């Protein structure tokens, strides 16, 4: 077994293990942190597949941003675990059936019959100066321009939705108007009056 293969199995094992922990841990914060671990291992596996840019962006966006939001939300909501868990045993058989069905389907569709090495040969390992980011940029900004602009619109919609869902004005709070502070002139604030000198007493 080559070292690369060993790394693949190592990362894959940690990935599956941490994914299991995500759904079995009692504490939601622990679950979220195992999800972070899972993302890391996923990034490592993508890297092994030579998808350099996507692997690092996975860490940057999912670990660095999305999971931070998750943690913010989870830490504040004091989720009552007892009620969440109440249905677990009751629905377990149904859950297992669905899970097994999905597994079988995935093996049938994605298994070696259609995607095996005999159908698609393993691609050549990229040379050391292969620049994944540049390749991606070239195809994204020439062939897929339309998709790019649609992505911008989706991001815009997300931004507006986030603001309209979460933003509330608090009537009782005070705020600073920086422009007005800067516009203040000396004569608005300061008045110099003439008065006779104090007698020494």
């Amino acid at each position, binding site marked *: 077994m080559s070292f690369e293969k060993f790394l693949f199995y190592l990362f894959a094992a940690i990935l599956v293990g941490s994914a299991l922990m995500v759904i079995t841990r009692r504490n939601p914060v622990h679950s979220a942190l195992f999800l972070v671990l899972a993302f890391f291992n996923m990034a490592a596996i993508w*890297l092994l597949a030579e998808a350099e840019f996507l692997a690092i962006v996975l860490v940057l966006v999912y670990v660095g941003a999305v999971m*931070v*939001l998750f943690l913010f939300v989870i830490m504040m909501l004091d989720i009552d675990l007892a009620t969440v868990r109440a249905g677990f045993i009751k629905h377990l058989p149904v859950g297992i059936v669905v899970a097994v069905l999905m597994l079988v389907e995935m093996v049938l569709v994605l298994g070696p019959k259609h995607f095996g090495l005999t159908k698609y040969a393993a691609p050549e390992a990229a040379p050391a100066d292969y620049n994944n980011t540049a390749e991606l940029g*070239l195809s994204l900004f*020439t062939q897929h321009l339309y998709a790019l602009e649609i992505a*911008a619109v989706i991001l815009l919609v997300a931004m507006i939705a*986030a603001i309209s869902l979460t933003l509330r004005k608090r009537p009782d709070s005070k705020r600073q108007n920086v422009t007005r502070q800067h516009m203040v002139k000396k004569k608005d604030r300061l008045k110099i009056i003439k008065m006779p000198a104090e007698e020494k007493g």
Partner: protein
Amino acid sequence: MLENYLPILIFIVIGLFVGIAAMGMGFILSPHNPDEEKGSRYECGFEAFESARMKFDVRFYLVAILFILFDLEIAFFFPWAVVLDEIGPVGFWAMMIFLGILVLGFIYEWKKGALEWE
């Protein structure tokens, strides 16, 4: 390409190991006398009241959500900047439209007061 990443993997492991070693040394060398007061929550000398798990302003979520969106935007910018010389004016203007749409969102955010902290 992959052989370039091997040192990074080892570096991350060693980086974590440095932290583990430092804290391990601390645990071995230092005394351990836990007592009730020492282990209690720090609250400036008061008895702790209420749980430390509290609600905080919704603005912090808004910041986190907006951060995700801008982070994604940055992720789009990286490949663009790398190939800017090859894709020329077409690629440049395509990105300007992309940026323009997002600046619209930014202006909306600003006007709505989502960036105000009070």
